[in-house]
């Protein structure tokens, strides 16, 4: 059990949940399974990507949005309460040898990328692209460490008006954008990831995406989180993911799954 040290709303749709815990240091892109408070009718733990980890203070944070009844209940948890916590789990983002890391986060998808941005090695250039509905929905930008942060909002209330993909088109069309040095990192809605993948294929650059699937065990035991592979068959998001090379995903199938 991990004690909640903070659980605050930090944007219109986003909460920052910080727990005191002794877990091993997570890699960016890894996730934790968080149990919902009892007694309740909820059964499964909810998976969330690690947003921040402070080894010395033994604090792990996730950034989550209220997506349904479970996260609604989570948003009402108060500091001092205890939640069951499992993790860190899965495979995080690989470190591409390329020098230009383009991180594209749609909505709450920015969370694992924000964590990733803070781990980028010296000598890497990080461009961080954030998409959100409105200014109020943007995740806490101060936790991102990047050479440049770009923001797009659907209503233009902060940064460019449009989607994070429009933003990406803008960024890559800049004359000094060098595809040969670029690697894409993405997290967000399936439509975003699918288009990111398409762009990566077209530009022949590596693309790593963090996927979502409903999870049971989080440990590769239940076969619940299967996602169809481009090469046929399935992989398990909790074990072979959540971060995978976008080439390995059957995007038609992934985007149909609710």
């Amino acid at each position: 059990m991990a004690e909640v040290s903070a659980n605050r709303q930090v944007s219109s749709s986003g909460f920052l949940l910080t727990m005191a815990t002794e877990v091993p240091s997570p890699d960016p892109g890894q996730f934790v399974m968080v149990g919902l408070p009892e007694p309740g009718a909820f059964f499964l733990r909810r998976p969330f990507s690690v947003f921040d980890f402070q080894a010395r203070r033994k604090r792990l944070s996730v950034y989550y949005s209220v997506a349904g009844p479970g996260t609604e209940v989570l948003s009402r948890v108060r500091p001092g309460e205890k939640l069951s916590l499992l993790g860190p789990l899965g495979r995080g983002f690989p470190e591409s040898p390329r020098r230009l890391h383009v991180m594209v986060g749609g909505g709450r998808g920015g969370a694992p990328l924000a964590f990733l941005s803070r781990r980028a090695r010296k000598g890497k250039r990080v461009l961080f692209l954030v998409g959100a509905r409105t200014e109020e929905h943007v995740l806490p930008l101060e936790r991102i460490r990047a050479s440049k942060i770009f923001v797009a909002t659907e209503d233009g209330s902060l940064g460019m008006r449009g989607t994070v993909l429009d933003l990406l088109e803008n960024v890559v069309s800049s004359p000094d954008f060098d595809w040969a040095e670029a690697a894409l990192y993405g997290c967000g809605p399936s439509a975003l990831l699918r288009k990111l993948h398409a762009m990566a294929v077209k530009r022949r650059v590596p693309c790593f995406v963090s996927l979502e699937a409903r999870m049971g065990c989080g440990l590769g035991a239940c076969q619940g989180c299967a996602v169809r592979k481009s090469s046929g068959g399935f992989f398990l998001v909790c074990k072979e993911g959540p971060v995978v090379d976008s080439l390995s995903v059957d995007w038609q199938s992934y985007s149909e799954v609710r």
Partner: protein
Amino acid sequence: MTVHLGSLRLRNPLMLASGVAGYGHELGDVIDLGRVGAVVTKTLTLKPRQGNAPPRLAEVPSGLLNSIGLANVGSRAFISEHLDRLRNLDTRIIVSVGGFTVAEYAKLVLELEEVGGFDAYEVNISCPNVKAGGVNFGSTPGKAAGVVRALRSKTGRPLIVKLTPNVTDIPSVAVACESEGADALTVGNTFRAMAVDLDSRRPVLGATGGGLSGPAIKAMCMAKVWEVVSSVRTPVIACGGICSAGDALEYIVVGAAAFQVGSACFRDFRAPESILEGITEFCRRKGVRSVAELRGTLELPRT
């Protein structure tokens, strides 16, 4: 807390249910297998199976829906990749076997008998019988008996048969399995169910239908265990919605000899350990020397 199921001896009555513990070793980091009575593997079939289209899981009030679809590595990979790791585990290993024809079940068991290295079988008869137009083997006494008969002649290891609760008359299936020589009966598998996503107007599960497990099924499964223990002498292993020591003990009072924990592991992998501790504590508090002493002590009202 030692328990005997036919010739199978378990250090305690708690087993990990098929499908939640993979092939036994996946949960090694989160569950001390040296504490549990036995691990039942994910159901194995002769050929590898990829399983159903995603999503394969959905949450419903107090329950979990799954449509994994018997995804498994198949007997060959199981024997070459997993069996050795299982041998080293400090618990009983029960291999769950499934098939779509009686011949498939039989062939699978023969392959496993050749290598050995495990303690018993759990025969999952909730698989659709392809020869009988997809009706589950577990849904009629005759088909269930057919599977058990075929396997009984192939192995001396204990045969546990896992019944499906989705039948009008579970005692008749239980009696059929008993008379073909089953050593124990697991009651039972998941309840058929389905969830719909109103926004997309599509089934939540990629496979449309699935099986319900978790607290939502406990009271129904309790009634099934009660029906079965009232009709056979073969030991019954209760499986359905067990989350706490109290849940497990209720089944034992109704007549179960042992029990399996499934979905509760997903809520908290410490569930098996805390259930065992709770049972010990209960026995201490009530002055009960062994769980066996509680078995079948349900007192019926005089009416």
